[in-house]
């Protein structure tokens, strides 16, 4: 069934002659182009690596602890607070462990911290309400920047050449000096 499907897909909409030509082309590509062959081998190797190596368990405590701030005003991530005599971080870590032991999911655990310590306990803005703006702006800037750059590049490329071929224009002293300077700059090592 699968083979039939594959065969059907491979020959869909093509004449037998075109199909033969494509197969020959592919064979030639596989046998004669070493870069393509090597690329294919590397790709296969990557696939094998992905297929045979399994994924490990992630530490939820570590992950959540790095998404929270210590509230002792040390401005450090909860799991990195080493404030001598800090009265908050140990207690907060304990609360985090307790939340995980209760089987709460990540959102519920974090929500508990926000309710108790306020929104500044989260190490990064949430993705709700106005806080979304924090995340959107850098990507918006990227898109605008890319568009502007593309626009600039296109505008520069469309800019007319200095003089039409064959049309020799008289060059004044100041322009001549400018051209000389440019020629020196372009040819210096």
């Amino acid at each position, binding site marked *: 069934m699968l083979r039939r499907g594959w065969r059907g897909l491979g020959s869909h909409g093509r004449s037998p002659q075109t199909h033969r030509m494509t197969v020959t082309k592919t064979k030639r590509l596989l046998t004669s182009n070493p870069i393509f062959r090597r690329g294919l081998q*590397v790709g296969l190797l990557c696939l094998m690596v992905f297929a045979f190596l399994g994924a490990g368990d992630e530490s939820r405590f570590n992950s959540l602890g790095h998404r929270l701030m210590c509230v002792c005003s040390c401005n450090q991530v909860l799991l990195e607070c*080493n404030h001598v005599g800090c009265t908050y971080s140990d207690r907060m870590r304990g609360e985090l462990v307790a939340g995980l032991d209760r089987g709460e999911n990540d959102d519920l655990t974090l929500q508990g911290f926000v309710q108790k310590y306020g929104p500044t306990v989260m190490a990064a803005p949430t993705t709700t309400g106005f806080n979304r*703006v924090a995340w959107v702006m850098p990507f918006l800037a990227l898109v605008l920047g890319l568009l502007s750059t593309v626009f600039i590049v296109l505008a520069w490329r469309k800019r007319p050449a200095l003089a039409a071929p064959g049309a020799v224009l008289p060059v004044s002293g100041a322009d001549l000096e400018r051209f000389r300077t440019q020629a020196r700059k372009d040819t210096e090592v």
Partner: protein
Amino acid sequence: MSQIGSFALLLALALSAYSFLAGALALAWPGPTSERLGETARRAGIATFALVFLAAVVLVTSAFQDDFSIAYLYHHSNRDLPAPYKFATLWSGQEGSLLFWSLLLAAYGLVLRLRHKTDARLFAYASAIIAAVQIFFLLLLNFAAHPFALMTGSLPTDGAGLNPLLQYPEMVIHPPMLYLGYVGFTVPFAFALGALIMRYPGEKWIRITRRWTMVTWAFLTCGVFLGAHWAYSVLGWGGYWGWDPVENASLMPWLTGTAFLHSVMMQEKRGMLKMWNMWLIFATFWLAILGTFLTRSGIISSVHAFAQSSIGGWFKWFLLITLVAFTFFFFKNKSHLRSEHKLESLISRESSFLFNNLLLLLACFTVLWGTWFPLISEYVQGNKVTVGPPFYNKVAIPVALLLLLLTAVGPLLAWRKTSLESLKRNFRGPALGALALGILMMVFGVRPWNDIAYFYALMAAMLAALVALTVTSEFIRGGRVISRHTGQSLLASMVHLWHRNTRRYGGYIVHFGVAVVVIGILGTPFNQDREKEMGYGDKMTIGPYTLVCESYTQDDSPNYSNEWAIINVFKGDRQITTMYPERRFYKASQQPQTLPRIRSTIKEDLYLTYEGLNETTGRPIIKAHLNPLVMWIWVGVLIMIGGTVLALIPSAAPVRVRAPARIETAPAGAGD
């Protein structure tokens, strides 16, 4: 003594005001009389340096004499403070650091004014602009943050002491480096603005300021990374970069300064991006001032905010005035900044610089946005939010990876146009090498599908390898050409190659250093840490190391009392070292401080902190971090600085050839 300092600052203000006004008048109405007036303005600028220097000497001398009648010294020093930190008192607090800033600006101004014969008129403009900036700092020093303000009431017998975090050897060199960088960007800015106002013909001003910019950039790089090293060695949380507002403040001008260093080459070589460069150098200068405003005004809380006060208003006005003045001159003379050439191909050095600038600016915007968002949120929602490492890691890392890709590809692109064929030919080897490294990393356990951090680490490793291999292949290819002609060894040929174009190949070494730094950073996702209460003979294992507590004790010195543990470190059965993590309690300031101990190797850092005593058991709590590859960061920075120094050395003079010679094919991207 304090009166001498106060008087020196007041006179310095008067002289810098004269330097600015007389300089501006002489430039506005040129003539024989105005030349003499301009000369007096230049000399007034030089005298400003002498007076600010005198004020700084007075403050340092008073610190050594324990003159606690000066309020600044009372708050930042004490009798038992070691001599190097008494010297460092100059930049340990707000008033002192503003004086230090003013001193550095005056020193830069001095060098500029002494070298005025290079181009008298352009230098006169730059001198007047520097004097204007100097007026702002001297106004602050005289009227808002006076370093010689006196204590009121009965005189204290001892000072309140220096912040313990600042009592570390690196604090003696980190702030000066950072300030040299911050203040230094005033000089290229002053030249750029001067060139804009006078509609300076050509790009000579860029050649004049090239060394200033590179030296300044090197200082700022040193300052930023020394700060990171200081945080790593002193703050004791096992990391070196926490995206703190003060760290961000130093990173922003570094990013725009790096963009300027690249794009200015386009103006120099191709007469393009003139308007852009004006804004870029202005933004760099402006961000350096904005950084000071952020950290000194107290509007944004920071773990580094050692001094906060009400000088924010002064900075706001200064930032506004500079923005208005620059915008006015820009629009007045922008017709002078038209581009001379068009972009001939998308695959060219020019377009790579454009995208490099876009990404650096985007990174800067992200950092600025993240730093300001808590305030914006408070204004809009009525409550502050925290913008910490998770935000920056998600947003800034992809940008950094793209930048790294451009760093790898850029050197392979030639000015004007590069053929796809030559790009493929030169890129194939490094790309295959990077791919091989990626596969090896996955085979050895880096599973990018497990954690996004591993994915970033893998990409960063591959791209860093790509940069390193591209740079190496450029050196080898160029070296081989020279070797064929001269018969020199490949190494000697590569040195010869560098000497022929120091700026280009010095720049490549800087890129190589960046790749090494990135390799160091990508160790972060593999950090491990353990914490344990350790009595006599107790053991803790972390990675390949076994830590055994031999003893723990207490000590006392005039400046502080301390508790510390003696930890023997074993690798297998062999003892490799003994470490002494410590906690101090500074008497004058009544503040505690953790002092980590670090054993660095090329593979990993073993980082121990003494967290404190368990009051019930009386035993110390030791925290151990195992941070892979951290040393690579510091080595990478040294390579970056070395590359900058090599780029600063003048290239060998081109050899004049009488007979026509066959031209050898140059490596891709030839010509800087």
